[in-house]
């Protein structure tokens, strides 16, 4: 990390993002995707692994919503909206999985990989805290991946494996949906309601989530 205490929150988060990008470049499945050697089995495995964590997404967001008091009314409102928007997402992922030949029963019977366990456990734990403002850091990472990387991954999977749009709904949808969410997030982060202590929490949470998200992707090759 190169940031100093004088950096703004946006600059500190940009550093976390840069570290994450560096890390993702070493993740085996993303390397294969980049090289064009990724297989249909890789895509199925990616969806299978993501699904087990994505299915928890709106749960930890709504848990966080329930822990914001009236002093954090705006954050609570945003979290409630966000949870509602996300809680059907895993169904889209499941349809993609079936559309490329996967079995819905097997997908739903699947369990989290070690990275997903750590990520999901951390999110639920964090969401249980009173006023878990630091979770904005988690949103920054997860929504950022959706907005900035998922569509690129989808396009590359389509290019290498010859997939139809109808087989990559989940990743394509997130480009648009998560751009909206990151726009909302930017508005919150620059609204002046984040004090220095909250900013430290946000950056720390972003660092942990970035690391665990990459771990989740690494673990699907184990």
């Amino acid at each position, binding site marked *: 990390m190169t940031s100093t205490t004088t950096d703004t929150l946006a600059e500190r988060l940009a550093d976390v993002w840069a570290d994450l990008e560096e890390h993702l470049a070493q993740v*085996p499945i993303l*390397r*294969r995707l980049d090289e064009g*050697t*990724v*297989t*249909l*089995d890789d895509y199925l495995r990616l969806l299978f692994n993501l699904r087990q964590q994505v299915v928890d997404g709106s749960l930890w967001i709504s848990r966080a919503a329930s822990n914001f008091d009236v002093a954090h009314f705006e954050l609570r409102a945003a979290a409630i909206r966000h949870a509602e928007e996300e809680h059907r997402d895993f169904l889209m992922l499941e349809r993609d999985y079936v*559309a*490329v*030949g996967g079995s819905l029963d097997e997908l739903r019977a699947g369990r989290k990989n070690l990275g997903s366990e750590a990520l999901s456990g951390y999110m639920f734990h964090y969401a249980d805290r009173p006023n878990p403002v630091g979770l904005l850091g988690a949103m920054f990472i997860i929504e950022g991946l959706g907005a900035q990387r998922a569509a690129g991954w989808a396009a590359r999977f*389509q290019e290498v*494996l*010859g*997939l*139809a*749009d*109808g*087989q990559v709904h989940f990743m394509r949808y997130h480009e648009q949906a998560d751009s909206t969410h990151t726009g909302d997030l930017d508005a919150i982060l620059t609204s002046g309601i984040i004090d220095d202590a909250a900013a430290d929490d946000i950056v720390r949470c972003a660092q942990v989530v970035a690391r665990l998200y990459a771990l989740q992707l690494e673990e699907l*090759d*184990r």
Partner: protein
Amino acid sequence: MSATAYLTGFGSYLPGEPVDNDGIVTRLGGDDPVTERIRRRVLDANGIRQRHYALDEHGEPTELNEELAVKALHAALSDRGIDAADVRMLACATTMGDVLVPGFASMVHGRLGGGPKQLLSVAGVCASSLSALDAAVSKVRLGDHPRAAVVASELASRSLRQRRYDGIRSGMDAHFLRWMLSDGAGAVVVEFQPHPDRPSLRVDWVRQVSLAHEHDVCMRAGMSGPEPVVGRTWQDVGISEAEAAGMFLLRQDVSMLDDLAGAGIAQFEELVDIGLIDVGHLDHVVCHYSTNAFRDVAFDALRRRIPTLDTDRWFSNLETRGNTGSASIFIALDEAWRTGRFAVGDTVLLAVPESGRFSFAFAHLTVVAPPARAAASRPEGVST
């Protein structure tokens, strides 16, 4: 973006032992001198030397049409190394199923099993096979199904037996098909990925067109003339009246067949004109036709466009497998594929003219190699 559709499994089923020209009479009857003379004439013209019937030596049915379809499907699925459960769509073509209701595909699926599937029953005549293929290919390309199976099946023989002709005035229109049609089924597996270990046939396009707007009915059953009349179809009059009127005979107006050949060639020319067929890169033609006379007409037309086309590039198994209507094109494709006629990079045109009321279907295929194995075989997680 849409996915690409590949044909990855091929199968066919021809019931019983092959029946040569002398063995027809024991199955279909018609050993009186007049019928005998007509049969010889028709057989001389169509060039068919052997065929299969789902009839025993006494002319009694041995199987249902849906059984032929399921056996061809089993052959295609086994050729691909998958089960019926791996297929999410089943498109079935036939001229006449075993029963009036429900649809043929429902009966085939019921017998095949393999879990829930999207079904399509395509009714028609010979070109219904490629209409079924078109639908399956479209759904696979849309990404709605990773795998589909297509089958075309015919069991015409039971309506060609003597008891149908007894006491009924039947001219050449009924005899022509009687000594031409026989039974069989052919199937293909369609997938959005090529076969992992061996070449596949990529489906470049499928086209079907009807010219019924400017042609009368050529092939018919269920009405007493070329035009249906209100209150006079087989469903309106009594069954015995319909039978006495010869409505259950399959008839073809043979005087229209030259027009059919001409119209089919015009459709081929149009596909060349709009660039879908590049005659400079067309390696194989698998064509369905009812008699060798039309093979020669079609071949001459192709020669005009492709002077270098030699007869090896043209494939049909009409002479040895018979004219199995809609099933013919898949039975021919299966044999052409299995006997190693196609090499990676070759292009293949499937062509099916349908006399019913002038329909024409074509499909353009390219032989593609299996995907590179390097990526798939590299141990997971090992950096290079």
